[in-house]
């Protein structure tokens, strides 16, 4: 399977997602070897363009590329929030002119990776854009859940937290629905994503503000980060007020079914959206997710950059 790019989960079908997860499974076995390197991308140059701080995602992509023997370069810089200074277009064209094979892009502006691909004509893997998508995060979440729960068909996943500002929820929702999981979104109305029922791929999603009603029926609970700064925007009145309604507290942890797992894409606000006891519980997938990140990104880079036609 060759993917021309990975701008989003939107547009991928179940077979493509499953192939990516299966490839990631193979990549994870490579990581258990003494020699963890494959020659698949030898001679290819992939540039990590991170216009927004993200140490862990950047490290994960860098390691994934190196384990596939790609040459990597890193660009760090603040994405401009004005039209002054060098434009994103000029930056991308400049780096493309160096003769690289493609990009991994993180940017604070939704759509920036797609435009970078349009401008340069080179393959792009989206490492998170604005409030739009974060496709490798959704794939690694699905990978980690699939390992613990088996096939996700018919499984019930609840996604809880700041769904409005999250790029993760868009990718996750589409990915999980494509894999046949039932998805419930849980948040106060101020933090629900706009028009979510009408998103493509989101058909059948359940939306509620009642976490307690959902808890006993989930196979997986995905807690999303809630930024404390959102309080000033009036999205919720106080930490205590938020925790009372939507925090995964010790009490709520006990009401989960025995087999249910807890995921969080990190970085966590312990004590806000997730209690320390939940983060460190045996049912927590949080470190599995990090480990899965490298395998999944190896799989993505492999399918985008390896083989014939990767530059076409």
């Amino acid at each position, binding site marked *: 399977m060759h993917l021309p790019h990975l701008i989003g989960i939107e547009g991928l079908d179940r077979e493509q997602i499953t192939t990516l997860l299966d490839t990631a499974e193979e990549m994870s076995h490579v990581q258990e070897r003494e020699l963890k390197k494959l020659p698949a991308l030898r001679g290819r140059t992939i540039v990590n363009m991170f216009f927004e701080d993200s140490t862990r995602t950047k490290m994960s992509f860098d390691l994934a590329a190196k384990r596939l023997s790609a040459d990597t370069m890193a660009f760090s810089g603040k994405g401009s*929030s004005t*039209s002054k200074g060098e434009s994103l277009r000029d930056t991308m064209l400049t780096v493309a002119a160096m003769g690289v094979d493609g990009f991994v892009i993180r940017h604070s502006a*939704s*759509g920036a990776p*797609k435009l970078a691909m349009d401008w340069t004509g080179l393959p792009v893997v989206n490492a998170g854009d604005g*409030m739009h998508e974060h496709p490798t995060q959704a794939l690694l979440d699905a990978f980690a859940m699939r390992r613990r729960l088996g096939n996700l068909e018919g499984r019930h996943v609840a996604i809880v937290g700041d769904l409005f500002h999250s790029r993760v929820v868009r990718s996750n929702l589409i990915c999980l629905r494509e894999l046949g999981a039932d998805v419930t979104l849980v948040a106060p109305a101020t933090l629900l994503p*706009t*028009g979510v029922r009408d998103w493509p791929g989101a058909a059948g999603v359940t939306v509620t503000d009642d976490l307690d009603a959902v808890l006993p029926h989930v196979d997986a609970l995905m807690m999303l980060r809630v930024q404390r700064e959102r309080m000033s925007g009036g999205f919720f009145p106080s930490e205590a007020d938020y925790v009372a309604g939507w925090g995964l507290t010790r009490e709520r942890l006990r009401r989960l079914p025995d087999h249910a797992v807890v995921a969080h894409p990190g970085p966590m606000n312990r004590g806000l959206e997730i209690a320390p006891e939940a983060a460190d519980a045996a049912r927590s997938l949080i470190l599995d997710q990090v480990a899965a990140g490298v395998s999944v990104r190896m799989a993505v880079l492999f399918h985008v950059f390896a083989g014939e036609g990767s530059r076409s």
Partner: protein
Amino acid sequence: MSTPTPSTGPILITGADLLGRGRADLLLRDGVIAEVGEGIDAPDARVLDATGLVALPGLVDVHTHLREPGREDTETIASGARAAAAGGYTAVMAMPNTTPVTDSASDADWVYLKGLQAPHADVFPVGAVTKDLAGTELAELGLMARSRAGVRMFSDDGHCVHDPVLMRRALEYVTAFGGVIAQHAQDPQLAPRASCCDEGPWSGRLGLPGWPAVAEESIIGRDIMLTKLTGSRLHVCHVSTAGSVELIRRAKADGLDVTAEVTPHHLALTVDLLESYDSAYKVNPPLRTPDDVEALRAGLADGTIDVVGTDHAPHGLHDKQHDFTVAAFGMLGLETALSVVSTYLVQPGRMTWADVAQAMSVRPAAIAGLTGHGRPLAPGEPANITLVDPTREITVDREATQSRSRNQPWHGRTLTGAVVTTILRGTPTLLDGRVVDLGAAPDTIEVPA
């Protein structure tokens, strides 16, 4: 208000369909319509065969952004006037958000005098409502009204006059000289500056900051109440939502002096185009849903929305070639407006050419207080005439423009109905689809585009 235009000899337009109501000849002499009738004999006149063409009074745009002074690299008063002529316009109202802002009598006169030197169209300044468009103190509305420019229309367009007390005072103050406040309805808290996508499934899906309909409708609702309170005149710029149309419909039913405008792009383009993240589709207010588009078409057709205003907003490539959230807001509009209205309202039978004359000439001139435009095609009236081929198909090419900018959202699209000839006080400014060389406007700053 008269502009000296190069005198041309008499012109005899033959066989034109006047407002789509029947064929007649028009004899133009000394800048006015000398005679209207069948088989006019004028041996000294140059004959323009208008068989198959519809004759409209010269179009008037109440909402144009020329970038002079300040950004002459993207548009000048002269280049904007040429674009106007190419689009069938004989008069345009230049919005005040230039550098400096048109917020004093001398600024207004500067634009007015500069406009007199642009031979392709009459250009009149719109004055700012507040100093420097800052929304805190009234600009010198009375002095602008008393200036040579005789400003009657005031707008902070690009910014909303958000302070309700200031808006009330502005409405009250302009009653002294029959002025009108043209409001850019955007609550700056419900839709802050970063808002760039209609709030709804598309903003959620694309992860773009939402611009909710209520941010427009709540300001329109408030301003309608202030208009009732003050007995003044309100004009609502670029109405974009179905809810706004309904509010204006009710205000009119209540007998208030409220008028409204819709842009060509809001009559046809929809939010789903943002899926491309192409900044050509970034505009304020944003492209809305198909339901909104339908309500706007219905509102224009039934007269709830009085006029089509282009919101012609030239921008340099370097202001547009950015990610969507950073790129400049705005689209070109002067050269394509008539074709858009023809395609989406006249062709489907929702508006007649007489309706188009109302919405694109007669009513805009009345709202802006222009006495020499938007007049009937009758003897003694100014010879401002636009000839339209109602069936000609055009494919829009952003490079084929009189504007100094290229931010053309209609690029590559095919439209039905095209302006063929524009005549300003008896002088053709556009002839058979070509802009007439009337000599460079003197004293125009030539900045490389």
